[in-house]
């Protein structure tokens, strides 16, 4: 049912020569103009690099632990907006920032390790 609707709509779009948000298949329809991007923060030598990162709304930030000691990524706000499990060497944690703002975070095992993500 859905498929047949899609085929019809896709055919219509082709005919008109437009790619627009006609139908309910959001992921497909918006992919061309979507701002989604990936950014990586490297954890190494007991520090986050870069320690301050500026991204646009919708960005998924991935932290990768390249240290030989486990670390965590925990936002400092009381609500703990994001909080990773413990990351052993080469393990990753991702969080997609849906709202603008400043997001300070730290390693809850080694609290001297701090960083910040600024979402615009």
């Amino acid at each position, binding site marked *: 049912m859905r498929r047949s609707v899609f085929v019809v709509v896709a055919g219509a779009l082709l005919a008109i020569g437009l790619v627009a948000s006609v139908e309910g298949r959001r992921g497909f329809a918006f992919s061309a103009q979507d701002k989604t991007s990936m950014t990586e923060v490297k954890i190494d*030598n*007991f*520090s986050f690099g870069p320690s301050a990162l500026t991204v646009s709304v919708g960005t998924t930030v991935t932290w990768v632990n390249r*240290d*030989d*000691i*486990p670390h*965590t990524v925990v936002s*400092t706000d009381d609500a703990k907006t994001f909080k990773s*499990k*413990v990351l*052993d*060497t080469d393990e990753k944690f991702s969080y997609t920032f849906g709202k603008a703002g400043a997001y*300070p*975070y*730290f390693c*809850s*095992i*080694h*609290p*001297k390790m*701090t960083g910040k993500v600024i979402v615009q």
Partner: protein
Amino acid sequence: MSGKKKDEIIYDHNNDGIDRRGFLKCMAWAGTGAFCVMQGGVLKSYALSRMPETNPRDTMGELSFVQISDSHMGFNKAANPDVAATLKVAVDKINALPTAPEFMLHTGDISHLSKPEEFDTVDQILKGAKPKDVFYVPGEHDVLNDDGKQFLERYGKGSKGDGWYSFDKKGVHFIGLVNVMNLKAGGLGALGHDQLEWLEDDVKHLKSSTPIVVFAHIPLWSVYPEWGWGTEDSAQALAYLKKFGSVTVLNGHIHQTLQKVEGNVTFHTAASTAFPQPQPGKADSPGPMKVPAEQLRSILGITDVNYVQGQHALAVVDSTLA
């Protein structure tokens, strides 16, 4: 270093030639553990590996125990690919002591990643030690992912709060503190209000002549705050212990033996049974120090502590695993 016969370092509190506030330290790269002996109210600490070269008469006292620390079971990186083996060597050394210690203290980071099998392995290895009682405090690696729930289930029977408690042995009052919970961004270790209140109450009824031994994972003195090697509210805890004539603080966390004497308080940190960490500020970060394999066992150790009455001197000898 392991070839030296006389590596004993004695800090004489009575000798004015020593700067008491100074940072008295022993960088003996040795000791997966400390043999501790109480001799007349004063605690003496010896690195386990040096015990064979120490006169057994010097290490007799009314109470002796062993401190081990930072076994980091599960760690398998270059700095020590076999942390189970080095812990076993520590146990062998404990079992070879001329006087069997009455119990053991483990000052935290039992596991590397708080995995059940890591705790199981350590439990299994320590079962091979002659002293059957082991008193634990958690390190930050023991309370990952579950706010210490598993640690409490395994080791926290009869403890308060996040796992703090006290007990008495032969007139010595032992206090196990927890300073690895709810750490704040940018901060150091922390005891927290509830624990401090409990501590104040716990020692209130004790006579000032009671020897006190406090043990906790992160140092209760500012070893190197830049690396988080200290505890935010330790001054408050120490204030409650001011009235006592003999206070010894045993910590782990920094994977090296250091000591400091300040007034009535002697601070010790024990080496790790797993891997060494650099001296404060002597590296970019406090990450594991890689040393040649043949040297590793001479760097890891155990500290033995003795409690000495009527003699105001502290002797510390560190014992290597080699």
